[in-house]
């Protein structure tokens, strides 16, 4: 196809890029997402997860979750644990522990970060306190804080999203 094309590992014409398909299949399985579609020029690859289940039902939130706002995002959490992740171009910083979320190092002090702030990787975002231990949660990307997802002094579950950060660059 496109003559000028250089950089890319031009998929040889006609030969199916089975290695790529294999990698997408792996990625699908690991990530737990439902579908991956890649189109490049004339090439398009779609990989979908198998639909399973007797009821085909969705996760029903528990009747009265202690921390109601976390119930919905849990599906994500389960699929991709980790302190931060890509999410529509955003990083989501998550809580690595159960505890109480504090935006400031101590009562009366300034929050570590505000929406609009730029943070560098390794910079403290907040504290999650559990059994009197103050766990500083550090940013693992550099970028702009777009949203604070939890109110100050509220409880957070393991893996609960805390901040949305638009990564730099």
């Amino acid at each position, binding site marked *: 196809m496109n003559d000028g094309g250089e950089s890319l590992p031009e998929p040889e014409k006609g030969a199916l890029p089975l290695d790529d398909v294999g990698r997408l299949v792996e990625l699908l399985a690991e990530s737990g997402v439902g579908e991956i579609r890649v189109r490049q020029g004339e090439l398009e690859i779609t990989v979908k997860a198998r639909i399973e289940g007797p009821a085909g039902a969705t996760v029903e939130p528990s009747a009265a979750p202690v921390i109601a706002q976390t119930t919905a995002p849990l599906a994500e959490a389960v699929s991709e644990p980790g302190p931060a992740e890509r999410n529509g171009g955003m990083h989501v910083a998550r809580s690595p522990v159960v505890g109480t979320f504090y935006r400031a190092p101590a009562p009366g002090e300034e929050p570590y970060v505000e929406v609009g702030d730029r943070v560098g990787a390794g910079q403290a975002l907040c504290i999650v306190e559990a059994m009197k231990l103050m766990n500083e949660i550090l940013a693992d990307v550099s970028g702009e804080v777009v949203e604070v997802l939890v109110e100050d002094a509220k*409880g957070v579950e393991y893996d609960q999203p805390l901040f949305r950060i638009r990564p730099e660059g």
Partner: protein
Amino acid sequence: MIGKVLVANRGEVALRVIRACREIGIRSVAVYSTADADSLHRLLADEAICIGPPQAASSYLNIPAIIAAAELSGADAIHPGYGFLAENARFAEICEACNIKFLGPASSVIAQMGDKASARQVAAAVGVPVTPGSDGPCRSASEVKRIGAEVGYPLVIKASAGGGGKGMRVVRAEEEVEAAYTSASREAGAAFGDGSVYAERYMKELRHVEVQVVADGFGKMAIFPERDCSVQRRYQKLIEESPAPELPETARKGMKEAAAALVDSLGYEGAGTVEFVYVGGEFYFIEMNTRLQVEHPVTEMVTGVDLVAEQFAVASGEGLSVAGNVSSRGHAMEFRINAEDPRRNFLPQTGPIEFYNPPGGPGVRVDSHLYAGFKVAPYYDSLLAKLIVHARTREAVLRRGARALDEFAVAGLETTLPLHLAILEDEDFRRGGVSTTFLAGRELKSDGRGLPRLAATGLPSA
């Protein structure tokens, strides 16, 4: 007194406690790992908090996370179930320090009974027969030799902190003592962080018989009919029943009295089980479990008492609803349905349950966290369900058990269902009173197939 309890467990026992809470009117808080986000204990509790990733060390054994969850939810008590933190004295102590009621005895009692050498000493001190052997830990090989000279060989060296056969060595003669002592102690140290061991006479062909008690901490106590848990595989119980078949009345009575004496001496609060071996017409104390047992439903079936409700009654200060020797009606037997393939050396099974239909009808109880679509994860123990049957005689229980196992449909992975069906056809088992070596190398005459007609291929799809 207790308004909200955090259930620090998962699987069927978490469900058991949550069911009791709902019946009593206590709010329940489930904790769960990310692997258990779709589990019934999370869905059926009044509240639920995710406490960590799948690995138990980071979730169900994660004390800070569990305490934090209790504080966040405002739970005023924690029920530990069995396994995980149920006999962790430090956890009980932390609960005490945080002013959270731990459903179990005082942490000091857990510690005392958790050390088997010390438990032997306590039992012996109140006149409970213990296996002939050392009074407390043996601090050297020569102490073991002294025991050998006293009670004779073979001896068995066991880890004080032990369980599950770790740090255990059988010694056939005095010249084997040195090597066995050293290796047992080293193994115990590695497994439990505590190398201390003790020695006792080695006995074969023994039966495992235990006595369930619940005490209120103020001297009031209920003693339940004994359970026989001799059908085991590698120290894991597979079938439990009550009453123990073919046991002389004197032994039955003696064990209950011994259990009562021991529990009384401890100022014990809550449910506990005093375990004995029964061999050569004599019984000997081996250990006490300071928690609810997996097999507690067997006792519930013959007595009509809800043991978890009694735990809550004690913990809330309401006091026991029964006392003394609790009477029993009929016979009950529990079958543990594990995610293991009995035809391939009990290979653990994981994956989704494709079809699930537990048995029903008279005298049948099922405690299980399964449902069609639930995924059995590789992180936790293999217990999927407990089938408990009750009838007026042991003979009727054997037939009812076979009937219910036959109906029990679990598709998607292999289970111990066919093993149980095969055991139910074994003449020795049917006669009653087999020893703990019953299953070792045994050729069961039936392979347990042929009967389970629903489980094998599932049922007709819609």
